């Protein structure tokens, strides 16, 4: 058995695993070959070892599972591949946006302080969502009873909104002037705003 033959067996095994889309055992792989050309068990295993290393640096890898071998997309590419199956993003609730805005403009700020300004409780979900998205982080704890966490925005937050620094956020005086524009935006947004029950916390 020469090297060329082994490479061919390897390519056939790869082709079969890609076409099958499920695990194949060594026996099943051997049965793809006519009796006259069928590789021995040992040779088949050798081809699989070779295939394994031939997949290094590629988008997929050979996995040994209970029922045999299978080809699997590498986990490191899951973030990109996952986007193939993504549903349409939903929208954030008004409460979340207000919380985010307050953290951005009044940082470092505790949850209690946000609640004080907003006049309503801030749900843990909102804080968790903002932390998970890595738009805010805990920068310390205020030295008061309960030692509440102080939140600040992150570099990811600035990046997302295309800001070099917080000072590029519109000044509050401008925000007030925006009232007029705001109403307009509000009007325009009516169209694509999903029903309220779809919003995230």
């Amino acid at each position, binding site marked *: 058995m020469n090297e060329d033959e082994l490479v061919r067996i390897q390519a056939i095994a790869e082709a079969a695993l890609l076409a099958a*889309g499920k695990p194949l055992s060594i026996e099943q792989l051997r049965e793809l070959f006519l009796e006259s050309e069928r590789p021995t068990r040992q040779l088949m295993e050798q081809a699989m070892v070779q295939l394994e290393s031939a997949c290094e640096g590629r988008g997929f890898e050979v996995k040994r599972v209970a029922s045999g071998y299978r080809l699997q997309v590498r986990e490191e590419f899951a973030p990109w591949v996952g986007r193939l199956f993504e549903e349409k993003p939903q929208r954030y609730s008004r409460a979340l*946006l207000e919380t985010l805005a307050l953290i951005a403009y009044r940082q470092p700020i505790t949850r209690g302080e946000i609640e004080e300004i907003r006049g309503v409780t801030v749900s843990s979900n909102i804080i968790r969502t903002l932390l998970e998205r890595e738009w805010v982080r805990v920068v*310390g*704890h205020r030295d008061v009873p309960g030692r509440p966490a102080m939140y*600040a925005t992150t570099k990811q937050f600035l990046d997302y909104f295309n800001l070099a620094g917080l000072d590029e956020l519109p000044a509050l005086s401008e925000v*007030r002037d925006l009232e007029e524009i705001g109403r307009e935006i509000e009007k325009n947004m009516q169209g694509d705003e999903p029903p309220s029950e779809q919003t995230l916390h």
Partner: protein
Amino acid sequence: MTDEIKEPIDASSNEMEQVPLALVSGKPLVDVPKDLYIPPDALAVFLEAFEGPLDLLLYLIRRQNMNILDIDVSEITRQYMEYIGAVESMRFELAAEYLVMAATLAEIKSRMLLPRQETDDDDELDPRAELIRRLQQYERFKKAAEDIDQMPRVERDTFIGSAALPKLPSSQPHPDVDMRELILALQGVLKRADLFTSHHVEKERLSTRERMSHILSMLQGDRFVTFESLFSVEEGRLGVVVSFLATLELVKEQLIELVQAEVLGPIHVRARAAS
């Protein structure tokens, strides 16, 4: 004749040469007859192997090695009528379209039997021309169908590759947020809190606020850092001023503490909450 779709198609068509066309007296009839005699039992099956009268005519012309442009209408008609005559008695409904073709052939032949008009009028085309046009047209698409059948196709000549999925991140995607939405939200909340009147937040203060967050994040845990390390020379004067203002603000808000062990000694900073 209505062509029935067979899926997957049995014997038939493209492989007329290999697959028995019919069993005649228990013996398989494998080949399309070389001569014109077809056992009557096999004839219906034989005709079914054709896709219609044009297909049969093409076969007859090819069988005789006849150029399509040079059809000997008499001979072809004679053969054709023989086939049709034999099949008519058994499978009349099958033969209907073939009979139309037979009539066409007969008509062409009768027109050719008439004395030809010796005029220079080229307008009157040979009566065979229309038939030839149809035969040629049909032959092109018969060939095209064979070509399509030969083209590599999925599930026969190739298979689409797929691999198992790794554990995928939660499929809940992040919503997009427009800066305007953020401003709108802030506007709403500040209006409610009536904070517009106070001037707590101003443009320049934001960079100080940012720096406050930054310094706080440097002071994680119980650790003291030197006062100087809060400053970065590369930032220039303005950066140093912002850091200094941020430090003062943090002290004022009792978020950090400054410790100096001796006069003129090094100043250390740590987060108050960490104590």
